[in-house]
């Protein structure tokens, strides 16, 4: 039987606060799957027109799918969140771009007519699951020199990017990071970030606390402070904790629906998915990923970079963001199109969750800027990939 493809809309996007990974982090005693449950329930609560049994799939990503992120989390969280048993669920992994991939996978289900409404997202409790936990890399990687030894250490790949682009100095990277912190502070002070965070009461050693704000932002950051930080990945290196995104715990998710489902249920769409693309790069310079991915998606969408009003780039490292800006001729260091509410250097980067955080930011930017038409969410991925999704403002 012939069929038509469906347009896919993002109806809502929400996240938990992002905590610092480790025992001192607010989420240390909280399970990753419980964070996912909180996001799922927040999406349903914020969109009461949606009967829970209408959710056609629950798609969740995590990089380390074991322990509290294991056991087909997409399915377990259906039950834990109190969704009807009839709702199916799936787990997905594309490392840092897990959440982005979950959203694209769910969108594809809707686009081909296999689903009307999906919840998708990503979680990473890096306190419970340090990157690479339990992994057993194939010895051929090293024996056959398939990758550079630095490829598995994300900070080292960032140093490699500085090598590749000697014109990007440490000072530039620090400056980028400082602007990021300032933009994030401004957005918080204006109450923007709070709109995207669902407060969650969590158990800690000191009793129950409400996790309602990110732990990582350092609004007081100065160039002097950044200059003297250690460069843990190399002697006389350029990558520091100050110009990187950090290790975090967090979950973020989106509610996606077909045009028809939005109309039927009265769901208010925020943006339309135009197209998406993933592209590979050499693992040792994985931070380049967004560049080929963005080129690819622009080409598929038959668009130019300048058609984009906003770019939400997951700045795993400042150097990678600057390389992206250089490539596409953006204004350094504070192009108003790029991460206007700040980015991962301030908020943190709980791997698989970040893709959906970017979508939350872009959706809010569209809401607040009705004149904006197109936007991009893009990110780099460990082991050398980039992901890029183009969205159209649907709030008008």
């Amino acid at each position, binding site marked *: 039987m012939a069929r038509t493809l469906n347009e896919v809309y993002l109806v809502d996007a929400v996240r938990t606060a992002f905590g610092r990974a480790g025992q001192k982090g607010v989420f240390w005693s909280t399970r990753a799957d419980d964070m996912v449950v909180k996001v799922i*329930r927040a999406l349903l609560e914020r969109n009461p027109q949606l009967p829970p049994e209408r959710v056609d799939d629950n798609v969740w990503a995590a990089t380390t799918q074991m322990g509290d992120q294991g056991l087909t989390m997409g399915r377990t969280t259906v039950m834990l969140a109190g969704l009807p048993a009839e709702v199916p669920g799936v787990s997905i992994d594309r490392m840092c771009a897990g959440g982005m991939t979950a959203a694209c996978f769910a969108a594809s289900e809707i686009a081909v007519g296999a689903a009307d409404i999906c919840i998708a997202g990503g979680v990473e409790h890096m306190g419970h699951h340090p990157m690479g936990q339990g992994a057993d890399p194939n010895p051929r990687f090293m024996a056959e020199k398939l990758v550079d030894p630095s490829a598995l250490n994300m900070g080292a790949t960032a140093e490699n990017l500085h090598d590749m682009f000697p014109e990007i100095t440490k000072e530039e990277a620090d400056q980028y990071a400082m602007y990021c912190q300032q933009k994030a502070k401004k957005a918080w002070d204006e109450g923007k970030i709070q709109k995207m965070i669902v407060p969650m009461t969590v158990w800690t050693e000191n009793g*129950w606390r*409400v996790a309602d704000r990110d732990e990582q932002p350092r609004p007081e950051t100065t160039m002097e402070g950044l200059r003297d930080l250690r460069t843990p990945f190399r002697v006389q290196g350029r990558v520091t904790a100050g110009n990187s995104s950090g290790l975090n715990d967090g979950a973020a998710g989106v509610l996606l629906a077909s045009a028809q489902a939005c109309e039927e249920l009265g769901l208010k769409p925020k943006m339309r998915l135009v197209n998406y693309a993933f592209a590979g790069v050499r693992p040792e310079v994985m931070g380049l990923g967004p560049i080929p991915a963005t080129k690819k998606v622009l080409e598929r969408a038959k668009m130019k970079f300048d058609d984009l009003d906003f770019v939400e780039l997951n700045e795993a490292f400042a150097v990678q963001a600057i390389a992206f800006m250089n490539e596409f001729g953006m204004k350094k260091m504070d192009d108003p199109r790029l991460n206007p509410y700040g980015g991962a250097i301030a908020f943190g980067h709980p791997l698989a969750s970040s893709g959906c955080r970017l979508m939350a930011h872009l959706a809010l930017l569209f809401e607040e800027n009705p004149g904006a038409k197109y936007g991009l969410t893009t990110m780099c991925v460990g082991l050398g990939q980039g992901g890029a999704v183009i969205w159209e403002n649907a709030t008008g």
Partner: protein
Amino acid sequence: MPEELVTQFKDNYVETEAGKIAIVTMDNGEDYRKPNTFGLGGIASLNACLDRIAETQDVKAMILTGKPFIFAVGADLNQVPEIKTKEEAISVARAGHAAFKRIMDLPYPTVAAINGAVMGGGLEIALACDYRTISTGVTAVAFPECFIGLIPGWGGTTLLPKLIGPEKALQIIITNALNNNRMISGREAYEMGIADRLYEPVEFLDDTIKFTVGVLNGTEKVERPQPDFSNVDALCDAAQAAVEAKVHGMAPAPYRAIEIIRKAGEISVDEGFALEDEALGDLIISDQCRASVYSFDLVQRRAKRPVGVPEGAPLAVNKVGVLGAGLMGSQLATLFLRRMTVPIVIKDIKQEFVDKGLNYIQTEMTKQAEKGRIEKTRLPWMLSLVKGTLDYQDLADCDFIIEAVLEDMSLKKKVFAELEEYVSETAILATNTSSLSITQMASDLKRPQRVVGFHFFNPVAVLPLLEIIRGEKTDDQTLVTAFDVARKIGKRAVLVKDAPAFVVNRLLIRMMVVQWDLVDEGNTFKEVDEALAKLGAPMPPFVLLALVGPAIGMHACETLVEAFPDRYHISENLRKLVEMGKGSVYGPDGNVDEEYAKVLKVADPPKKSTPQEMIDRTCEAVTDEIARMLEEGVVAGPEEIDLCMILGAGYPFWNGGITKALDYLGYSEKVLGRKFHPEK
């Protein structure tokens, strides 16, 4: 004094649209297996926490909650035996009242977020808050105080009736407590009006914060029905009559609680608290309270780690055999099937017996399914696990075989000898005897070390006790496996030496001998039953005899007469009762059976005893018997005697089983010149 595991009160703050809310967490630093309790250290921590909150600017409301799965379960019982004087007891009561009163007096809304188990002082601190939310995940809401010889004396006896009225308060404080500490669920507590809101566990605290914000904003309105005290006297009279029927004036706590509930409608909170102080002052140091705390500890802790069980891994039990498809065999097969869900083979000597047994199992299992205790869809499969047979060969691959044939030594020896030809070397042979010697039963077997006694109590599905009897040759492996099986079928097992009639029957029958003596001397059955009801057993002796069956009672007695002719004998009147085939000394109208009355022979003229004399003679006899049993090493200590009496004969907590009562009533010193539990 056992060190107090202090429950700390930890304050955190959250900024909301309605302002700053303090979130206070009660946490003793352990997981749910060690619930939060309150001792004086906990009270001090609460006071310090309230001081910190008072110093914090702009607090608009306070939420009080527990650690995961636990709100708080009341006072730290370990401290109770250390309180020696009434003054000390009153000061403990006052310390709790004073701290909880501080919560009541806070100038802003306070909300107890009952996230988990809530009992006693935990429920009282919740009642001290203005509002309560409760999670649907809560399964344990209770005021167990009257069950352990206390009253809810940190405000509960006053505040609960003021909140939900005397009828429901009596239900929780008296009826549920005395009904083996029955607990209610979070949903039931909400429906009774104890909590104002019921939320799902998944976002319980987030929902409670939203509720609190709503209270502050005025968007949440809490409406409670006015408590109805119009018929408080009638309600309290009825409750008191029920208590009387249960404890016969022997346990003071429930009476004291009813006294306060009766007044709760007309007195102020402070007046109520003062009455509670006074009551706790008397009760904390009472013998009944100490005995109850002792009993509670026995049942909660000692029963879970039976004394004398050897170390080692149990053998796997993947298939169970039952010899004898009579009522006992069928009950046992049902129990094993329900609890262990393994294939069961039930053997008898005639097909009609087997069929009757299978029919019983099917009927019982179907009843369980109808009550929702077994999934209906699972029932046919479970029933398919049971197989009836006439052939020992079908028991060949059973790992554990229990016999429930007639109580006859030669018959039991015969079936075990026949069985041994078929089963594997490691198969365990258990005997469900109530009085025969395990050692003797095993003596002619090739492998006597595999025989163990499993003495259940009727009704098997209800009474939790299992006396596990070690014969002279029973080996450690058999014993370890036997205790593992006991745990799997949900029984509390006590290790008993192979001695005549084991524990519970030996003691009950020693008392029965005295009771028949009293009848033979010319006291009526009624007089004896009424006098001895005060001992606190679930039913008086001649009612119990009807339940057990006079023939079985006499049979068990015969074993003891043979073993201890100096102390045990069988009344001719009992013999007659059995010969006539009567099920009870009483007829259906509750009077002595007319036919039996005609043949009853008692002393003429009758030698009447006072109720106190009847109690004295019974208690002195049982004191003597317990001392002998401990001397013989029948069980590890008086604690095991008490566990058996509580779990197997339903003796009350306030008696401490039995030995604590014999101590505090003075019988042990009178008979033995010493107590079973010497003061430390």
